[in-house]
């Protein structure tokens, strides 16, 4: 299949070839992903479609009725779309795979998921799909919700009206796999059905809505044939809740309360779990490995140092992100499947639009103030890949809690009792940076983005299914470890190697060298002049920034190491480190210490937060955009730091 090899978005990639592919499609909120999860469970892999930043879940599916010897079906959960005329890159992917792809690279069977309670809205896509020769099965979800509202959907009548097999599924029950599987296998064995006859006589070439009118006419006919109204269900719980949740004053209050909860869970709840894992790795695991290496006769060697302080420390750092990411993914799944996320988009839309961002970008940015890593993953709440990309570029500018510790120490060292004001100022600067860089990017790279007025479907509220939430969380954590693991472990190990190897000309052997004679110090010294225009062109400060690129948590301990002093136990009393740092800043800034310190803080705030954030970026938006983010952060940080120092020098 040579056509599909060069343009992966226009058809199924090579890995899907040979097998039989089934694609789930549907409007948003019809329960498509819930159905996918109940069919495939934990066997799924969630990841970006090749060559895009659009997420598609894939899994092997073996319907109970299929023969044991058959290869499993390849099931794809395609991005939700209301129609085949795309308005976002995500919807475009669905269209590309179903329509634009050469016939051999399209899915063998398309399963259109429709919501029984909102059949009119779901059937428009079916009308379009039936305009081409395509094996199609309609899966009806939410029949129970429809029944409660006095709507009965007659599956047989629906099948006759649409002229394709119709299956009523309940993702909460296990037997949906066999029902749907049987229908899919049967459809596969038959030739593709002929396209539906269109009422072509009504089509007026000058009327842009003529095609839509024809489709709606067809939808109305189908509805009349298949839906029975058994009276009005009266006002629903959803309506009662929405009276509060989307209201002008109460809505934003509810939203802030939800954001507060999300922030608490990703900081206060996650922290003890992270500490426990960190303690486990740096304590028993390291001690065990050390004992093992001692038995092998490697105790005290450079190899021991590399294994303990390089590899195990790297794996430990990666593991501390697991509880945090699991909580974040779980929260996202709950917010999304409950239906609240759509309401949050309504409430935040106007405020965020004023600064040029979509309403839903609020959530990842709030999470970013706790930790940037889950915040990057939280950009998944945005339905448009361009919006996800823009927000991913802004998240690193939110001042995470690891940066707070450094701000506090530097603040206490140089500003004494005014440290609190300085830290507050950094948070303010962080918000200004997000807005400023956002406007800058909107004015350059994403000029056309966000002009779309908000029109959003509000699904009925649902209680999230614990099994579904657990499934999605587990799949995403696994995918995160898979992509992020390499980057994090390799970087931590590389820093160890740099600090263990003596610089050319320095005395000492590998693993025995004092910090100031290591390759690491030598690189910091080489890099230091870059920061001279910002007033902190000193190798100690530069080396602290280098460590900060890996993890902001390590900045203070490593900074202390470069002076061979103890790490201060309390950030409010910087002690010996404070004295040493003060002397160096005074020297490197030519006496304009305050300006240089403020420039240093601004740099610390704006440059790349940590290697784990980069790993998360690589997973969400790919290597190219991850590097773009590094370039953007470093340039913004350097330019601002230089500006702060140069202006500050003139004033003070």
């Amino acid at each position, binding site marked *: 299949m040579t056509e599909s090899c060069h343009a992966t978005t226009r058809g199924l990639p090579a890995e899907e070839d040979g097998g039989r592919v089934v694609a789930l499609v549907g409007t948003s909120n019809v329960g498509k992903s819930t159905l996918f999860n109940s069919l495939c469970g934990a066997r799924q892999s969630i990841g970006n479609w090749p060559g895009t930043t659009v997420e598609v879940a894939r899994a092997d599916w073996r319907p109970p009725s299929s023969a044991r010897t058959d290869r499993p079906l390849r099931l794809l959960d395609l991005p939700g779309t*209301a*129609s085949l005329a795309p308005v976002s890159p995500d919807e475009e992917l669905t269209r590309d795979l179903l329509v634009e792809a050469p016939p051999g690279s399209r899915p063998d069977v398309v399963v259109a998921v429709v919501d029984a309670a*909102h059949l009119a809205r779901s059937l*428009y896509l079916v009308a379009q799909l039936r305009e081409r020769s395509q094996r199609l099965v309609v899966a009806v979800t939410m029949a129970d919700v429809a029944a409660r509202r006095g709507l009965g959907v007659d599956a047989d009548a629906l099948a006759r009206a649409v002229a394709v097999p119709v299956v009523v599924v309940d993702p909460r029950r296990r037997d949906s796999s066999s029902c749907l599987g049987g229908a899919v296998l049967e459809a596969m064995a038959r030739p593709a059905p002929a396209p539906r006859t269109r009422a072509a006589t009504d089509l007026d070439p000058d009327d842009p809505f003529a095609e839509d009118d024809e489709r709606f006419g067809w939808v109305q006919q189908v509805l009349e044939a298949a839906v029975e109204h058994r009276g009005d269900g009266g006002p629903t719980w959803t309506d009662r809740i929405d009276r509060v949740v989307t209201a002008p004053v109460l809505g934003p209050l509810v939203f802030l309360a939800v954001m507060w909860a999300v922030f608490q869970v990703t900081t206060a709840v996650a922290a003890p779990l992270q500490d426990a894992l960190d303690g486990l790795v740096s304590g028993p695991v390291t001690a065990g490995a050390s004992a093992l290496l001692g038995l092998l006769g490697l105790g005290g060697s450079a190899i021991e140092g590399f294994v303990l302080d390089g590899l195990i420390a790297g794996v430990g750092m990666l593991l501390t992100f697991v509880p945090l990411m699991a909580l974040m993914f779980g929260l996202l799944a709950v917010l999304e499947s409950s239906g609240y996320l759509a*309401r949050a988009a309504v409430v935040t839309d106007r405020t965020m639009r004023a600064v040029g961002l979509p309403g839903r970008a609020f959530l990842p940015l709030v999470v970013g103030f706790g930790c940037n890593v889950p915040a990057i993953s939280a950009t998944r709440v945005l339905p448009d890949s361009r919006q996800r990309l823009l927000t991913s570029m802004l998240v690193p500018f939110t001042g995470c809690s690891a940066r707070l510790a450094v701000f506090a120490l530097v603040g206490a060292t140089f500003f004494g009792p005014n440290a609190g004001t300085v830290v507050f100022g950094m948070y303010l600067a962080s918000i200004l940076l997000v807005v400023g860089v956002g406007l800058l990017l909107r004015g350059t790279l994403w000029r056309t983005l966000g002009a779309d*007025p908000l029109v959003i479907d*509000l699904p009925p509220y649902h209680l999230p299914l614990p099994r579904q939430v657990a499934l999605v969380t587990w799949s995403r954590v696994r995918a995160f470890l898979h992509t992020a693991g390499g980057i994090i472990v390799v970087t931590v190990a590389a820093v160890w190697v740099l600090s263990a190897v003596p610089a050319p000309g320095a005395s000492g052997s590998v693993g025995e060298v004092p910090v100031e004679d290591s390759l690491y110090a030598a690189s910091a010294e080489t890099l230091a002049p870059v920061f001279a225009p910002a007033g902190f062109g000193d190798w100690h400060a530069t080396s602290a920034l280098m460590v900060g690129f890996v993890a902001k948590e390590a900045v203070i301990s490593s900074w202390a190491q470069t002076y061979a002093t103890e790490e201060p136990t309390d950030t409010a009393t910087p002690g010996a480190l404070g004295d040493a740092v003060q002397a160096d800043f005074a020297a490197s800034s030519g006496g304009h210490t305050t300006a240089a310190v403020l420039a240093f803080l601004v740099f610390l705030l704006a440059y790349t937060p940590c290697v784990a954030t980069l790993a998360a970026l690589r997973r969400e938006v790919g290597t190219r955009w991850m590097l773009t983010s590094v370039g953007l952060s470093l340039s913004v940080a350097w330019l601002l730091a230089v500006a702060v120092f140069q202006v500050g020098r003139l004033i003070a």
Partner: protein
Amino acid sequence: MTLHQAPVGTAVTVVDISAHPRAQRLAEVGLRPGALVAVLRRTSGDGRLLGLGPARMAVDRTTATALLVAPATVPTS
């Protein structure tokens, strides 16, 4: 009148959507000329919460001011 001017709690019929930048998508999701729409509530940000049959939809102020509607004779549920 525009959808934005339509009193909350009334039912309206959509007359014209062509002033909206995403008119095509509006038509696809059911906000099309002739559609019966219940104006249920004002939302935060001065948008409107709409009822299209059993479905609920929120539109922002820009959308509400771009759609032309007429009072409907059928009472809302």
